[in-house]
């Protein structure tokens, strides 16, 4: 079961602001979901290989050649704030 502190901690990791007034309801719905998930924790999986992918394939490699064109303007057209080809964000280093 998640505590209020757990919810705060995960919200911080996920970089999602959770307002105080919504915390209890969120905690309750998350605990409901974890109640559902609990069922799979008890299964004996000793010796079972984890399955990350549906089909047995290996990552393909390609030649280390430049194949993309510079489309700066096109890709930055949908950005919140840009200047001189740079994305603008609040200052990080004082």
């Amino acid at each position, binding site marked *: 079961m*998640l505590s209020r502190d*757990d*919810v705060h901690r*995960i*919200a911080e*990791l*996920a*970089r*999602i*602001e*959770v*307002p105080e007034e919504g915390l209890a309801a*969120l905690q309750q*719905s*998350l605990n*409901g*979901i*974890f*109640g*559902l*998930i*609990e*069922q*799979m*924790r008890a*299964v004996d*999986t000793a010796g*079972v*290989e*984890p*399955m*990350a*992918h*549906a*089909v047995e*394939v290996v*990552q*393909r490699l*390609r030649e280390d050649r430049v194949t993309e064109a510079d*489309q700066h303007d*096109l*890709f*930055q*057209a*949908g*950005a*919140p*704030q840009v200047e001189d080809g740079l*994305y603008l*964000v*609040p*200052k*990080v280093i004082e």
Partner: protein
Amino acid sequence: MFDHTLPELSALLRDRKVSSEELARLFLARIEELDPALNAFITVDAQKALAAARAADARIARGDGSPLTGIPIAHKDLFCARGWRTTCGSRMLADWVAPYDAHVVEQFDRAGAVLLGKTNMDEFAMGSSNENSFFGPARNPWDTSRVPGGSSGGSAAAVAARLVPAATGTDTGGSIRQPASLTGTCGIRPTYGAVSRYGMVAFASSLDQGGAFGKSAEDLALMLGVMAGFDERDSTSIERPKEDYTRHLARPLAGVRVGLPKEYFTADLAPDVAACVTAAIDELKRQGAALVEVSLPNQALAVPVYYVIAPAEASSNLSRFDGVRYGHRAAAYGDLADMYRKSRAEGFGPEVQRRILVGTYVLSHGYYDAYYLQAQKVRRLIARDFTEAFKACDVIAGPVAPTVAFPIGEKASDPVQMYLEDLYTIPVNLAGLPGLSVPCGFGAHGLPVGLQLIGGYFDEARMLQVAHQYQQATGWHRKAPPGYGA
């Protein structure tokens, strides 16, 4: 005209009985008149559509057409289409215009299909009812107070209402098959790796797969023929020869072994749905299929496993939405971390936030082994169940959803109730297998019920054969919702 299947429309276009421009105008007019009550579309662009239709007409006149040339289609708003608003049903991307085409979009373009618009969906493909859309719920044309299913609810509703002859969707836990079942349309999710995910905004990368809606198994075969194929830009795309998915359609069912998992017919399945699915299975037997009881012992673990893996992968995939390079940025914030927190809290709806938080937890230090790794191990057990079952049968048959379409709002208060809608579809995604839904009758309140067929890896043609043969003998797939048919 709007009731025709893809081959019927294709023949009319080829024989010049109708032009692509006329078809586009016809469907655009239907959308304008009927979509306000359904909210199946987020974006419609008549100008772009008519330009594409005129180009298709020129191609047909040159004798240069293919089965989808000149046919109006819609794309689920999860597929990036260059120059089109691509929202993923979310406030996060509500005004974002895609600068490139998804592979799937390119394929339909190349085939000469005519894109009319982008369809409504649960936000970032997370949901089973299309109620989680920033743009409002999509509605079921059979009863507009009810859900069309999700997450590809808009595409399902659009095809059911004959607003478009066919549409694309995506299916991560059932998001094509379940809406197809609830709207009386046909929907297919191919084998993982068959359809390129390049330009298909990622929800859960090991589970996502693009697929299609149509009004018949043959429609699905034609749509898949356009969509499927190797794409080097998707590292999970499987390199294999191009297939003609229509090649087995006409083969009779004699000798085909249909597996019936004994774990399916439990108290979770509503009796009205069970009756329709049982009748459909009886029809397959009548046509000469051999029914074989099989077992999927870990069936009940599929939903819990999925709700570890899918949220985990979603938390990773959606971390890119931070208000920096694209998407919603909060209007007011303090430092950079505050900008991230507020942009994401404002941009994502409650279900997306819940899943990101669940995913973050199960991947976090101290919990990864107990949750994510364990879930991946149980996933292998579930996949093995299918491999074992397919030793005794060629296709597996069963229900798609436990009930018919439910009223909008009925399951909104408890996420877990909603998650249980997908108990029959989720195992297929976990195993990476192909699955489809075709209409097989009507249940409670006269609402559609779907029959699910599950195939072995890359055995879509056989699944489609069984579906097509079933449809030749029954007429469920030709039934349109009252007020939307010919």
